[in-house]
C-alpha cells in the first residue's frame, strides 16, 4: 500500500467531518460509563465514605432530627419516650397572655447577649489578629519564639483559661484589680465577673485573649503568600507604609481574614464554656447555648430546651448559608 494513500484514520475522519453521526455507518456502541478502574473507584469511594457517613448520621443527623422533634413535644429529661406532641407551644402559645420562648424576655436577652458578644469579640479579634500577624510577619530575631508564645493562649483549654482569668479578675485578690489600683486607674476593686455591667466585658476580654492567635495565624499564612514585588514597587514609588497597608496589604489578605472571621463568628454564636465557667448562668452574660442547656439539663425541660436549641441552630444555619452564598458569589464558585 502506498503511503500517500490516506490512513484508515484519515479516511474515516474525512467521511465524517466534525464527528457528526452518519446514518450509513454502523451505530456506535453505546456510551460507556467509564472504565472498570473508574467504576471500581467510585464504588470504593462510597464504601470508604460509609463509616464516616454512618458516624455523622449517628452523632449529628439523627440527634438533630430528634432535637427538632422534641422541640414540638413536652418531653422532659426523665421521660423522653413518653413525650406528647404539643405543636408550637414551646415556641409561642397564647393562654391568658403569651408564653413560650419567643415570649420569654430572658431568651431575648440571651439572643442579644450572644449577638453582642459575637460582634464585639470577633471585631476585636480581627483587628488584634491583623496587628499580631503583621508583627509576626516582620523579620526580627526570636520570631519563632514569639510565634510560639502567641500560640499558648490558643492551646490552653478554654475551661482552664476561664479559671485563670477568673482568678486574675478576682474581686478581692485578683491581680488585675491590684494592677489597676497601683496604676491609679481605679480607686476601688471592681467585681469583674459578678457586676452585671462589667461581666460581659470580662467574658469578651477572655475570649479575645484566647482566640486572637487563631485569627493571627490564618492572616499570617496569607501575608506570607503575598508577592513581594508589589511592595517593592510601592517602596520605589515612595508611598507611605500606612497607605500601602490599606491599599495593597489589606485587600490581599481580606479573603483569609474573612475565613477566620466566619470561623470565629460561628464559634462565638454557640459560645458556652468560657461564659459558663466565668459567670455561670448569670442573666447579664447568658447566651443562647447557656439558655438552652439550662432548660435542657438543669430544668430538665427537654421540649422547651430543644426549642431553644432549634432556634439557635436556625440562626447559625442562616449565617452559614448567607456566608456560603456571599463567598460563592465573591470567589466565583467553590471547590
Amino acid at each position, binding site marked *: 500500500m502506498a503511503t500517500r494513500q490516506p490512513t484508515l484514520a484519515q479516511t474515516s475522519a474525512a467521511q465524517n467531518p466534525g464527528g457528526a453521526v452518519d446514518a450509513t455507518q454502523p451505530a456506535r456502541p453505546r456510551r460507556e460509563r467509564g472504565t472498570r478502574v473508574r467504576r*471500581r473507584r*467510585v464504588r*470504593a*469511594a462510597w464504601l*470508604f*465514605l460509609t*463509616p*464516616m457517613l454512618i*458516624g*455523622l448520621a449517628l*452523632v449529628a443527623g*439523627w*440527634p*438533630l432530627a*430528634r*432535637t427538632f422533634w*422534641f422541640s414540638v413535644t413536652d418531653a422532659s429529661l426523665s421521660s*423522653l419516650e413518653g413525650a406528647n406532641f404539643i405543636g408550637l407551644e414551646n415556641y409561642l402559645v397564647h393562654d391568658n397572655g403569651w408564653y413560650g420562648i419567643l415570649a420569654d424576655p430572658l431568651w431575648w436577652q440571651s439572643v442579644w447577649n450572644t449577638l453582642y458578644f459575637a460582634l464585639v469579640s470577633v471585631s476585636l479579634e480581627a483587628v488584634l489578629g491583623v496587628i499580631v500577624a503583621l*508583627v509576626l510577619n*516582620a523579620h*526580627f530575631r526570636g520570631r519563632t519564639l*514569639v510565634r*510560639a*508564645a*502567641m*500560640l*499558648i*493562649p490558643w*492551646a*490552653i*483549654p*478554654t*475551661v*482552664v483559661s476561664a*479559671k*485563670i*482569668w477568673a*482568678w*486574675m479578675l478576682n474581686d478581692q485578690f485578683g491581680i488585675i484589680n491590684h494592677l489597676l489600683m497601683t496604676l491609679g486607674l481605679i480607686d476601688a476593686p471592681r467585681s469583674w465577673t459578678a457586676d452585671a455591667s462589667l461581666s460581659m466585658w470580662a467574658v469578651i476580654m477572655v475570649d479575645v*485573649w484566647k482566640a486572637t492567635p487563631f485569627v493571627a*495565624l490564618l492572616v499570617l*499564612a496569607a501575608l506570607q503568600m503575598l508577592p513581594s514585588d508589589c511592595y517593592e514597587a510601592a517602596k520605589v514609588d515612595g508611598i507611605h507604609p500606612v497607605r500601602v497597608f490599606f491599599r495593597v496589604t489589606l485587600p490581599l489578605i481580606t479573603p483569609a481574614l474573612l*475565613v*477566620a472571621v466566619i*470561623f470565629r463568628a460561628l464559634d462565638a454564636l454557640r459560645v*458556652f464554656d468560657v461564659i*459558663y465557667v466565668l459567670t455561670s448562668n448569670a442573666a447579664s452574660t447568658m447566651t443562647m*447555648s447557656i439558655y*438552652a*442547656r439550662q432548660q*435542657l*439539663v438543669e430544668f430538665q425541660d427537654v421540649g422547651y430546651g*430543644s426549642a431553644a*436549641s432549634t432556634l*439557635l*441552630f436556625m440562626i*447559625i444555619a442562616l449565617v*452559614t448559608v448567607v456566608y456560603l452564598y456571599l463567598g460563592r458569589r465573591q470567589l466565583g464558585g*467553590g*471547590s
Partner: protein
Amino acid sequence: MTLRRLKSIALTIGFWLLVGVLVLYAIFPFYYAIVTSLKPSSQLFEVSYWVDSLDFSNYVTVLSQPTFLAAIRNSVIVALSVVLIALLLGLTAAWALGRVRFRGRTTVMMIVLGVSMFPQVAVLSGLFEVIRTLDLYNSPGGLILSYTIFTLPFTVWILTTFMRQLPDELEEAAIVDGASPWVTLTKVFMPLLWPAMATTGLLAFIAAWNEFLFALTFTLTDSQRTVPVAIALISGGSQYELPWGPIMAASVIVTVPLVVLVVIFQRRIVSGLTAGAVKG
C-alpha cells in the same frame, strides 16, 4: 543626629515595645497561673508578680485526689480514642473526597462542612438519647462517640486538602501496578501522609482534651469526668472560698503537655489550621 535617624530609632523602639506587650499579653496569664500554683496557701492572697517561693503543696493536694487522677486517665483515654477514630474514618473519607470524582461528592463535602458548624447544644438532647440507648451514659465511650461530631468534620476536611496535594501520577502508577483503592490508600498514600496525619491528630487531640459541654452533660460521677469538667467543678466550702491554689496547680498540670506539644509542633499546627480553613 538627623531627624531621620531619630525617627528610625523611635520606630525600632516602638516595634520592640509592641512585641513585648504582645508577648506579655499572651503568656502572662499562664505565667501567673504557675506563680500562683507555687504559693503556699498562706500567701495566696498577696498579689505578687514573681515566683518567690517554690511550694509544691498545691500539686500534692491535687495529685493526691483520686478523682483528679481518674479525670486525667479518662481524658487521655477519650482523647486518644477520638484521635484514632477520627484519623481512621477521616483518612478513608478523605481519599474518596480528595481523589475520586463522583456524583454526590460536593453534597458530601457540604454535609461535612455543615456538621462542623453545628452548635453542640443543638444535638444535646438527641445525643443524650442515643448515648443512653447505647448504654454509654456516664462512661468514656459516650464521650468518644459524641466527640466525633466535631473532630470528624475537620479531620476529613484537612486530610482531604492534603490528599489532593499528592500527585495524580503516583496514584496512576499504583493503578497500573494493580493496586486496589485500599492498597493505594494504605501502602502508598498513608506513608506519605504521616505529617498531615500528625497535624490533624494533634488538632483532634487538643479539641477532645479541651471539650467541656458534652463532658459536663454526659457524665455524672466524679470517677467518669474528664479534666476540664473536674477543674470546673473543683469547689471549696462556698462560692467565695474556691481553692485557687489547687485549681491553678491542676490547670498547670493539664496545660503543660499541650503547651509543650504546641511549641514543638507549631509549624505543623499552623499548616493544619490553614489547610482546614483555606477551602472553608
